[in-house]
């Protein structure tokens, strides 16, 4: 199994290397004439107003939190799914209980308006 992960590691390095090589070749070929107007940040063609920060909506945070909870739940369920064919019915019922508890959590979030994009 170590050879599997070695392959994955090498593949990742190759996959990082190929676009990087292409970009390096492009940076050698392309013209390079920087001037301050070209390098200024884009704001629909006018000068930038204010420093670069935005009013951050708390809604992003709530979505990420709900995503995290369901991510962890799915990770718990994958070993169960792999062992599914060897399990008895009561074991499946227990995992269904796990899923129902989290479905209840989703419904709570829905009713409390946490899933609205304001």
């Amino acid at each position, binding site marked *: 199994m170590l050879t599997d992960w070695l392959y994955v590691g090498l593949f990742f390095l190759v996959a990082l290397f190929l676009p990087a090589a292409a970009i390096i070749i492009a940076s050698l070929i392309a013209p390079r004439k920087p001037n301050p107007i070209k390098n200024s940040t884009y704001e629909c063609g006018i000068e930038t107003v204010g420093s670069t920060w935005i009013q951050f909506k708390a809604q992003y945070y709530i979505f*990420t939190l709900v995503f995290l909870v369901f991510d*962890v739940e799915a990770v718990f369920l*994958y*070993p169960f799914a792999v062992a599914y064919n060897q*399990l008895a019915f009561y074991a499946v019922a*227990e995992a269904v*209980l796990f899923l129902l*508890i989290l479905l209840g959590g989703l419904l709570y979030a829905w009713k409390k308006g946490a899933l609205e994009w304001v």
Partner: protein
Amino acid sequence: MSALQIVFLVTALVTLASGVMVVTVRKMMHAALWLILTLLGVAVLFAILEASFFVAVQVIIYIGAITILIIFTIMLTRRVMEDTGPQTNRLWWIPALVSGGLLVALVFAFITWDRGYVDLDFLPGSAVGIAELGKAFVSPDQFLIPFEVASILLLAALIGAIYIANEHKK
């Protein structure tokens, strides 16, 4: 020095160095980026230990979810993106002393430990291993109760977060 040992040493060095960078770099966003590298290093360590399931879980949960959560937290609590926090406070030498003492004590304890090693059962990391983990999750005499309690814990976390966020809105 086999190839595996070299890979392990390089990975450990990268992980430790990125860990140090997380706490010493000035800009908070850069700290989050070094955190990604640290977590990747831990994933590679799991791969060296042949715990394939945990490599995937580490990347999916830590790098894919928790890092994003941390970055959003940084954005939520800082007025400007490039805000830098103070590196140390005035009494920095007290915790340095305590953790240095702890390090010395641990190294001493591990070096003088003479009780021999316990051989753990070699759990195959192949699909058999993951199926065994799955069966253990739902067997009443193994880990069923922690499995169900974990779901209630996740539910509690979800409800708590939504409650706090709703209060904030009002």
